[in-house]
């Protein structure tokens, strides 16, 4: 029931959003809202409207924080994860969800991403990955494929791209997953799983940017770009059963890494409890 969802979890007064026609970001924002709705209505979890904090950085992705009707903080470029770290340390009972983009979290904020992954503080990071700097008009980002065009790569991108989910997993994230806009139902389930995960969890969600990335690279309209996702981003169970020759050029979506590492704020609480126990003696 999308309309109910809008009325319940979005700030109607601040819609319509600023995203271009065909942008995938609205779908990801909806996935986040659906996942939160399911968790809030699940009596087995402690999620409620007031203990959820949405943190974002700067860029197209990060405007989502202002549209979602929770405690929300739209911070500086690249620093959302660092602000979120302080929020979680100050009050570990809060569920802290970071909405960020490929440039925000893997270029200017790359250092914070890898250290948060290593530290394993319980944050959920949702990356709206559109392969481009959209807000500034289409410059290449750390996820723009080699050879693709952008306003700052008029002759084709010479950089090699990051795979953000694998980057997080490599940095020690206890939960790293990939999703996309076409597979909204599967992606919502993965986002929900990330929110329930104890420890640092990242979901790299492939968005579509027909306005800048798509147009520069002759990828067609939004529908064409979604069809590309349908044909090339394959849910893990099916991906694993594919013959190797069919896997070429395709990527799996789903949970890529999941580990039960100690969660940082819980470990810190043990330290506090040790002193509190000493004080009582």
């Amino acid at each position, binding site marked *: 029931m999308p309309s109910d969802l809008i009325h319940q979890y979005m700030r109607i007064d601040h819609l319509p959003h600023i995203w271009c026609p065909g942008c995938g970001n609205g779908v990801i924002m909806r996935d986040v809202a659906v996942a939160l709705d399911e968790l809030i209505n699940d009596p087995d979890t402690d999620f409620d409207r*007031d203990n959820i904090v949405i943190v974002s950085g700067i860029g197209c992705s990060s405007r989502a924080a*202002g549209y979602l009707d929770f405690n929300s903080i739209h911070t500086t470029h690249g620093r959302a994860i660092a602000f979120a770290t*302080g*929020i*979680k*340390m100050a*009050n570990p009972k809060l569920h802290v969800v970071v909405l960020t983009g490929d440039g925000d979290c893997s270029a200017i904020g790359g250092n914070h991403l890898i*250290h948060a992954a290593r530290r394993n503080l319980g944050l959920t990071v949702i990356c709206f990955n559109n392969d481009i700097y959209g807000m500034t008009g289409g410059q290449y980002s750390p996820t723009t494929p080699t050879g693709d065009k952008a306003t700052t790569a008029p002759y084709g991108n010479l950089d090699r791209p990051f795979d953000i989910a694998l980057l997080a997993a490599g940095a020690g994230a206890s939960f790293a997953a990939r999703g996309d806009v076409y597979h909204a139902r599967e992606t919502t389930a993965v986002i929900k799983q990330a929110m329930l995960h104890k420890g640092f969890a990242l979901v790299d969600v492939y968005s579509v940017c027909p306005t800048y990335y798509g147009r520069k690279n002759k990828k067609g309209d939004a529908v064409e770009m979604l069809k590309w996702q349908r044909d090339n981003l394959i849910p893990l169970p099916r991906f694993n059963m594919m013959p190797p020759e069919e896997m070429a050029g395709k990527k799996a979506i789903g949970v890529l890494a999941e580990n039960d590492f100690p969660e940082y704020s819980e470990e810190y609480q043990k330290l506090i409890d040790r*002193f509190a126990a000493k004080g009582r003696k």
Partner: protein
Amino acid sequence: MSKAVLMQGNEAAVEGAIAAGMRVFAGYPITPSTEIAEQSSLRLPQVGGHFIQMEDEISSIAAVLGASAAGVKAMTATSGPGFSLMQENLGYGAMAEIPCVIVDVQRAGPSTGLPTSPAQGDYMQARWGTHGDHPVIALSPSSVLETYTLIIRAFNLSEKYRTPVIFLMDEIVGHMREGVELPRPETLRINRRKPSFHDGANKQCYFVPEGMYVPAMKPFGRGERYNITGLAHDEGGFPTNNTQVAGKLVSRLLAKVEDNADDIIRVEEYAMDDAETAVVCFGGTARAAMEAVLLARAEGRKVGMFRPITVWPFPEKQLKARLPQLKNILMAEHNHGQMLLEVQRTAGGSVPVAFLGKVDGTVITPAEILAKLQEMEV
């Protein structure tokens, strides 16, 4: 009577901050401030607080602002190079009105400079380091005991005016050890947030009633959902392109400090009653200036010391009040002439302003101040 303890300025900063209610410290090691992080990591878990060593200074201040938005008093500490890295988020704190304390234990620059040597070269950085017009409150202690009491005031002002407060120390005070008698906790005045918004205007989070300057702050997770942003925003906390709303916001941010300067500003005046020459100084430089004033007085010269404790906003009114009696001003500071500009502006040509500065990492001595006074024919 409380017991006397031998303490370093950097340690006093932590003890004072904890007394003020600081329960989150996020920082990154840098000489000569590192003892503040070390002492925080030792003390905070003992009082139920959290210490976190971040990956750099940018994330340190970001985490501090996040912690404060979640309702906990928070602080970071650094030195010049790290203070430069913090500037963008310092402006965010001013714009989004998130209280916090940023300690800068100044060392000799520019760049990596002389990391273990004293300087006061961040005075102007404290005022103008971040971009755009923004309010700044900066306090500078000159002793270990004052570090303890003044950092409590830094937290209080930060909470009262909802703005980051810069605690501008220097290597002299940070690493100086003195015997101090800390005040008993019950004698301290600590500002606490009232966790509710001002009434009226649908309880908008940045609503400020007529005649007031500061919106009330309710931390995240206490039942009111609202938005914080560094974009120009309306009283509801939402981004706006309305130039009138944006102009009104920035004007209020500046006015809350400018119009309340009397409440914010503190100065120390020593032997100023009949002084004809004022040695103006701040922070660790005051130790030498005080000695120089005593030596000059012993020789019968009418010299006093004027020390801004609140260094931003500059105590213009307080210095102006002394101008009619003064024949000379000597500005002594460990830089190439930064507070000098404020003093010259305030003197407005009515009193000549001489300057004694150092940029070589050595300390200004009482003898050097005396020699300068002689050169000025005081």
